[in-house]
């Protein structure tokens, strides 16, 4: 399946844009997405950490993705 991913903070610099498309296997999980991101953009490995939000909430690696989900890369936050 083809998903659209939003990027913020340093993730925007890594993928060179605020959003991009990614091809994932059908029934991919957040964990699969993270692996794919790291192999496509090795700079993600150099981050202190990064999380994935789906439909406006943090999701664990075993969370299953759907084509219409709002998927967001959340690099280390630094608000406050």
């Amino acid at each position, binding site marked *: 399946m083809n998903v659209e991913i939003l990027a*913020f903070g340093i993730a925007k610099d890594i993928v060179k844009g605020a959003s991009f498309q990614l091809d994932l296997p059908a029934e991919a999980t957040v964990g699969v997405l993270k692996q794919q991101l790291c192999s496509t953009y090795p700079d993600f490995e150099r981050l202190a950490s990064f999380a994935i939000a789906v439909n406006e909430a943090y999701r664990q690696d075993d969370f299953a993705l759907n084509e219409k989900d709002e998927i967001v890369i959340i690099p280390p936050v630094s608000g406050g």
Partner: protein
Amino acid sequence: MIDIQLKDTPLSTTECSDLVASPSTGGTVLFVGTVRDHTKGKAVVRLEFEAYAPMAVSEMRKIAEEAKSRWSADKIVIHHRVGVLAIGEIAVIIAVATPHRVAAFEACQYAIDTLKETVPIWKKEIFEDGEVWVAAHP
């Protein structure tokens, strides 16, 4: 009462204090976070805050609800600024009113500690010779 705002205009300590004040509570604790002029000895020229807005608001609301229930807070306000900030400007204000003073201190501290861990807002420090996303690298 919970009031969460993410805005690109200056924040007001008096506004936040007034929002939580009520004739029935005796005290309010506020945390006011301002923009620092240096990081590890390097001079910062200005800052930019970027947010994943809908989730930043919902995560701040979650923090306020948790603080409200754990410390029986009457009112909690969290205002966070986004966009370009000059040195010394206010980035965040948290205001908490509780029936008992000790609880207000604890709830306010919980709120700022948790905000810095979970709310999807990113700070970019701009130096004379470059810029860096804070906390990105170990």
